[in-house]
């Protein structure tokens, strides 16, 4: 019991540290690809500390609550995802819970953005919802494929089954590839940074956030990076202990970053078309194969 309580407190902290490390690392790596020096890896953390100390303008109750809702959704989600074998809230049906909880973060942003009544925000929200519609389809297919293959809805069981023998990526290559193909869309990085698109809609949903709100959304973003990659590592790369898990996450994240560095941004219609085409087909075929075998 005490271990459970401690892990409930510690796990989000670890997730936050890893998320911020990835945020800082991405800036450094991208800078090196740009032939720049780049900021120190601690820069996002410094920014957040600075932002928390700044004044911030609220646009109403819902504006505040939405930000907190999206952050809370992410924190709870972290507790369901096994990290090196630690999963404090894991139950027998946690994959289903994860699917539901993943909707909380965009919902919170949508609620708070709606209160701000900035046209850029409303366009950003509509894009976010449409993009979510796009990547949820292949995402659900690949989750279903994993669930069908291991005949369980528990993520912990999935990880255990993989650790006893081969990783799921060897049995289910197609859903794994599909998940990896939509990973940039889930993380909101190029070629799918349509939601934030600074040059088109002035950062979209983030445009009205300043000071503490921006700090909270940055923290939420750090959690978000952790969740999406950790889920991939758990589902397909066999989890691992604390160290191997982290290394696997790092590899996946860096691969995503390199894709991010060499592609421009898609338009929203092209992004949805893409998501529903190759990743969805691959994941569906993978699902059918998993069902038949």
């Amino acid at each position, binding site marked *: 019991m005490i271990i459970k309580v401690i892990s409930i407190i510690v796990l989000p902290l670890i997730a936050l540290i890893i998320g911020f490390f990835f945020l800082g690392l991405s800036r450094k790596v*991208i800078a090196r*690809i*740009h*032939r*720049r020096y780049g900021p120190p890896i601690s820069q996002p953390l410094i920014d957040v500390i600075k932002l928390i100390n700044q004044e911030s303008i609220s646009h109403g109750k819902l504006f505040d609550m939405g930000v907190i809702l999206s952050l809370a959704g992410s924190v709870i989600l972290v507790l369901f995802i096994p990290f090196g074998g630690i999963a404090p809230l894991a139950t027998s049906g946690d994959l289903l819970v994860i699917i539901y909880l993943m909707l909380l973060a965009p919902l919170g942003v949508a609620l708070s953005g709606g209160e701000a009544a900035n*046209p*850029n925000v*409303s*366009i950003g929200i*509509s894009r976010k919802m449409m993009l979510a519609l796009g990547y949820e389809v292949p995402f659900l297919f690949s989750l279903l494929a994993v669930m069908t293959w291991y005949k369980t809805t528990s993520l912990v069981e999935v990880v255990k089954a993989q650790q006893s023998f081969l990783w799921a990526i060897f049995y289910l290559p197609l859903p794994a590839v599909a998940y990896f193909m939509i990973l940039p869309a889930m993380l909101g990085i*190029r*070629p799918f*940074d*349509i939601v934030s*698109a*600074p*040059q*088109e*809609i*002035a*950062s979209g949903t983030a445009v009205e956030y300043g000071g503490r709100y921006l700090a909270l959304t940055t923290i939420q973003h750090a959690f978000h990076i952790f969740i999406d990659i950790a889920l991939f590592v758990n589902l397909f790369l066999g989890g691992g202990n604390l160290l191997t898990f982290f290394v696997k996450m790092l590899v996946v994240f860096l691969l995503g970053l390199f894709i991010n*560095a*060499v*592609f*421009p*941004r*898609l*338009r*929203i219609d*092209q992004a949805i078309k893409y998501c529903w085409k190759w990743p969805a087909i691959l994941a569906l075929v993978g699902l059918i194969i998993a069902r038949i075998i």
Partner: protein
Amino acid sequence: MRELELYFGPQHLGMVGNFSITLKVEGDQILEAHANPGWLHRGFEKLMEYRTWIQNFPLVCRINVIEPDSMEMVYAMAVEKLAKIEVPERANYIRAIVLELSRLASHLFGCWAYANMLGFDTVAQWAMYHRDLILDLFEQLTGARVYHIYICPGGVRRDLPEGFKEKALNTLHTIGGCIPDYDATFFNNRLFYERAKGIGKITREEAKELGVTGQILRATGINFDIRKVEPYAVYDKVDFEIPTREDGDAYSRVWIIRDEMIQSVHTIMQCLEKIPEGEVYKRVPNPFKWNIPKGETYVRVESSRGELGLYMVSNGKDKPYRVHFRTPSYPHGLLVLEKLLKNASIADVGNIMISLYVTAPEIDR
């Protein structure tokens, strides 16, 4: 769906320069666009009426930040035409070198703006780095990085410094050697094709009707370049091609920018080879008492964005009576932009604007 009014600029991350577009949007579609310049209106044409001929010379380059040399060139040409000054041959070669270098810098800047707008930071940063190498050359040549104040009436301000040729060739080889990198990452990128193909399409007839010049016209297949039609400096003595394309969309405009950069590199190399010895500056009379005979003229050069013209009237005094710049972005940024933005998607506002290479300081002057 609700109709919204959206302000694109001047405070907008996708806006390059102080320019603003008011958009009426419904969903993701633009119903109407109004270009809204004037954020940078400094009244240069009026200011120039208050200053002597030579005092205007450091002023003209400040009209355009991106490519100041063509501004200097057009002013020097107008003054020379009115005062009937012959420019020494070597000065003409140096002018061509400077103009092509600045065209190269300006096109790299355009690549930066376009890639950056598509969210393509990697290529954008590379282009900015290469532009900086050219600015280094300018610093060695003129002592300044952005506003060079170099091409003056009567020639150029000073001769090429020692070792300039080697350094310039070195830089050009560096930039030319990176073109395959640019091709691989940007110009041949499938997503660039997806984003730019068919966007902001303008037909040949529409282009002619709206007074379009420069690469936007050449992208519709008309081989119109003032360097060929009405050669100035030494463009009749060097060999270069005018790249054209047929489609008239953003994709072909950006490709023309890329092809022109290669042509510029070749032109500069030829000029550096052929440059004769001699004077670089024809002395003008005492600049403080310099009266230019009565007359009027219209001169034009091909800047990196199109036809840059200058209408100048002298009434025989020591100051110009009237100057009026015909800047390429003026029709592009006001008429063509408004036309092309109609019924476009919000995601393509910056795409269209930057593929037209709209520079705000030129429009406002």
